[in-house]
């Protein structure tokens, strides 16, 4: 399989992704690695959703970890306290998060630039604080235990099983994302990024698409949050912290804004990074900050699009 084919979306891209996630376990040095890999897959799914908003739609969100956390806590509480079956809890949480995103999205996405950054950041922080404070329901800063994920009596147990759930979900998410951006809706969304007024005068209700994609990306985050809660068996409010929101945006930006596969690559790199830096734990924050600055200064389009541009240039030169 050559690189150009892999970089071309939908033709080879999806198949290549499926192949990579199927074969990746062969390279895992030990069972512990599955745990890291599942986190990478989960982050990748959130980032594929977030990239629709940030990369394609051009709207920043500094609060997406909040939606992730709401999904996680929704599942934890519904299954733990109320005995709702996990699949129903996941769906109910996703619906609630979607509804919340839809309602707050209207006024928020009228804002632009720094004001939008401020508003999304505020929503994320408020969610984080509520989760920390309402300890009667959420267990407070100490966190809350979560039951295993069962479907029709069958439990998803062990990191290997979760790996395949994550892999399947990622392939599905990427497929959805590729479909969407190549549809009239998706083109309208990208047009919003290109020129809002240019899109409006040919009939694109820019507000509607911004809210739709904000909601969609929040639902992505919520679903993954629910699964993460079950997989981990224990969650704390810090899964919804400001820092986590930033980390998610950084993954998208690093891999490549407006590139679905880029979002996946960015998520995988930033999830693996702390493992690689394990012996330099103290420097983790500096490295993350450095990556954020360096990417934006030297490679503002992100890894994959820059790579693709370089390939294109090479081919043109040949």
């Amino acid at each position, binding site marked *: 399989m050559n690189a150009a084919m892999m970089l071309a979306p939908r033709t080879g891209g999806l198949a290549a992704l499926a192949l990579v996630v199927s074969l990746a376990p062969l390279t895992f040095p030990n069972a512990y690695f599955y745990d890291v890999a599942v986190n990478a897959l989960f982050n990748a799914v959130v980032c594929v959703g977030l990239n629709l908003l940030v990369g394609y739609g051009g709207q920043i969100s500094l609060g997406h970890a909040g939606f992730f956390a709401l999904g996680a806590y929704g599942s934890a509480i519904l299954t733990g306290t109320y005995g709702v079956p996990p699949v129903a809890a996941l769906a109910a949480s996703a619906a609630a998060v979607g509804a919340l995103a839809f309602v707050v999205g209207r006024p928020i996405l009228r804002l632009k630039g720094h004001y939008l950054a401020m508003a999304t950041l505020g929503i994320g922080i408020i969610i984080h604080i509520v989760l920390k404070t309402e300890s009667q329901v959420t267990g407070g800063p100490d966190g809350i235990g979560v039951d295993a994920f069962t479907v029709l009596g069958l439990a998803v147990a062990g990191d290997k099983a979760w790996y395949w759930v994550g892999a399947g979900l990622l392939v599905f998410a990427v497929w959805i994302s590729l479909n969407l951006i190549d549809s009239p809706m998706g083109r309208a969304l990208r047009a919003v990024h290109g020129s809002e007024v240019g899109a*409006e005068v040919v009939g694109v209700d820019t507000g509607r698409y911004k809210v739709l994609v904000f909601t969609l990306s929040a639902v992505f985050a919520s679903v993954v949050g629910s699964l993460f809660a079950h997989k981990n068996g224990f969650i704390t409010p810090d899964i919804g912290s400001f820092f986590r929101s930033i980390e998610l945006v950084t993954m998208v930006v690093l891999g490549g804004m407006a590139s679905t596969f880029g979002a996946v690559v960015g998520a995988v790199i930033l999830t693996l990074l702390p493992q690689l830096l394990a012996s330099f734990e103290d420097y983790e924050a500096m490295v993350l900050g450095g990556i954020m600055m360096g990417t934006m200064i030297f490679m503002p389009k992100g890894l994959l699009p820059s790579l693709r541009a370089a390939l294109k240039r090479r081919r043109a030169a040949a």
Partner: protein
Amino acid sequence: MTLLRIESLSKEFGGVHAIEDLSFVINPGTIHSIIGPNGAGKTTLFNLITGVYTPTSGRILLDDHDIAGKRPFELARLGMSRTFQNLQVFFNMTALENVMVGHHLHLDRRFLPSLFRLPAIARRDAEARAHCLELMAFVGIGRYGDADAASMPYGALKRLEIARALAARPRLLLLDEPAAGLNATESREIDEVIKKVAATGVTVVLVEHDMKMVMGISDHILALDYGRKLAEGTPAQVRANQDVVAAYLGAH
């Protein structure tokens, strides 16, 4: 019936009267030009008509219905479409995709079918692709199909905006200086395109500094200066108007 009626329209920007107490009508099926020196308020007028700005006072009626407070995309649904003096191209997309966004209103925009790319979506998209490629050829940029908009020269981008506006199938097409920055040959080609569009029954409102072009193709001309109407009439009438001549001489 008049297509568009402007009644004592005014727009003020912190003390600057960009448009002041302006009234005129545009009849269907005509080429209607708006001329005036730099800063006369032509672009502002376009922005008011297409809902990009809200008037300070006055009324704008489309088919005798007041369109006050309507957003640009709602007006597009009523058959308005336009190009911009300062390019508003989607530079993050290909040329063809730009035009396909123009066709947005005529495509299947349902959410769930889009997510799963149901056959209906794919089929309509393929048809739209072909149609938009035709439009690109029509305005003379057929060879740019899958090129990135960001890599196209200025003249091609001006035409790209026209193709995008046409893809919306407007009844009323507003062109803001479509020939600005083009050479003589290119200007003549744009001239041809406008005539062909008008021949299909589309009403064209044209802002243009190229007087040869304006005098050649317009049915009716409105001259503005400092946001006010200076003169109005056929090209011959406006050309003969002393105020218009004075305004242009004064400005240059």
